[in-house]
């Protein structure tokens, strides 16, 4: 663990991962931190699996597009400024 970079409690990470206010998860506050850690990991893995599946499927679908249109469709589906295509921005993917 890097000194000076505190890891947020697992419930805070779950809230951040789901992009919801912490108050929305108040019912889970009494859970054991180790269990919440496992929940956080499970959500991260589900998000990672979703990212992989979407990217794989999109590539497969683009291959199906007739050659003259393929570049244009690929550009529409994978804009250069979208981080998900490179894997960056997929927090779960980094874990």
């Amino acid at each position, binding site marked *: 663990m890097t000194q000076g970079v505190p890891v947020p409690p697992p419930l805070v990470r779950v809230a951040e991962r789901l992009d919801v206010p912490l108050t*929305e998860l108040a019912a889970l506050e009494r859970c054991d931190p180790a269990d919440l850690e496992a929940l956080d990991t499970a959500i991260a893995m*589900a998000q990672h699996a979703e*990212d992989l599946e*979407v990217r794989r499927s999109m590539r497969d679908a683009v291959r199906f597009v007739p050659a003259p249109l393929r570049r244009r469709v690929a550009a529409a589906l994978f804009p250069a400024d979208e981080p998900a295509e490179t894997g960056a921005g997929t927090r779960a993917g980094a874990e």
Partner: protein
Amino acid sequence: MPEPGAPATPADRPDPAAPPALGDVAARLATRAELAKLAHELDLAPDELAFLADEPAEALRALRTDVATSLAARHEARLRRVAGLAGVLPPGLAARAAQQAGPVVGARVASALDPDDAVRLAGRLPLDFLAELTLSLDTAGVQRVVPGLDPALVTAVGRRLLDEGEHLVLGRLVSAVPPEAALAVVEHADPAALLQVALLVDDRSVLPGLVRELPVDALRTVLAACHDHGTETDALTLLTALDAPGRGRVLTCLASLPVEHRAGFLTVAAELGAWSEVLPGLPHVDDATLRTLLEPPAGPAALAGVSAAARAVGDTATVARLDAVGP
């Protein structure tokens, strides 16, 4: 709650040896159903989320919704662009592209499509693929797309899911279709499977409509199967989701079963203190049926329980009727 080991008194704690009340059992069952749905969303086995087994069902439902929303939001913009492209392609070509993309992304795109385009596309997809796609279709997607589909197609997909034991997904599906379409799906279902689907419905407000339309023989078979499998408690918790005529219908079916079946249900109802949930059904039961239900061996205890429940709410008409009809 008292600390473990603290002395319990009748005033602050129920008798630990006493069986749980129906309300507690229903709450636990609702939590169990929500845990199964959350596990499905996270691609886990339900026992991997066992630490959430004491949480209220509403909290788990909110968490499941948050998880589903977060997954759908990750590629929302991209999937909307795909939906835009799919909407302008000839349906046959869009259907081939959807199959190329696979069922998971197909489900996400279907949720983003204009419902009319989704319905057109669904008509071009093979049944196997549609059934697979339905496994990944979230509740919002089901509600947007399924009501517009040809009922025959919904029935065919539903039966395929039933054959594959996908009760959880079926519970989502039957919540989004009219009762007649839902009944067409389950009319040949194994009674135990039918009970499972009912326990897992996303929206319990559809249950009264289903019980109203379900053929008497099917309802009777479900009740008999509950007795055979010892799942009377599950059936009784579902009673709490029914309207008064639905409860009356269940009681009427129960009265037509052999005496040992009736006694099994009434004994469990007595253990759970479920008489206040039975009471609303009585005005929808005729006197002959009521007399059958109150026959020994379990009838006298049921009579005492229901009479007490009626007196507790000041229902003097029912008390008088029970006095007149009872043994």
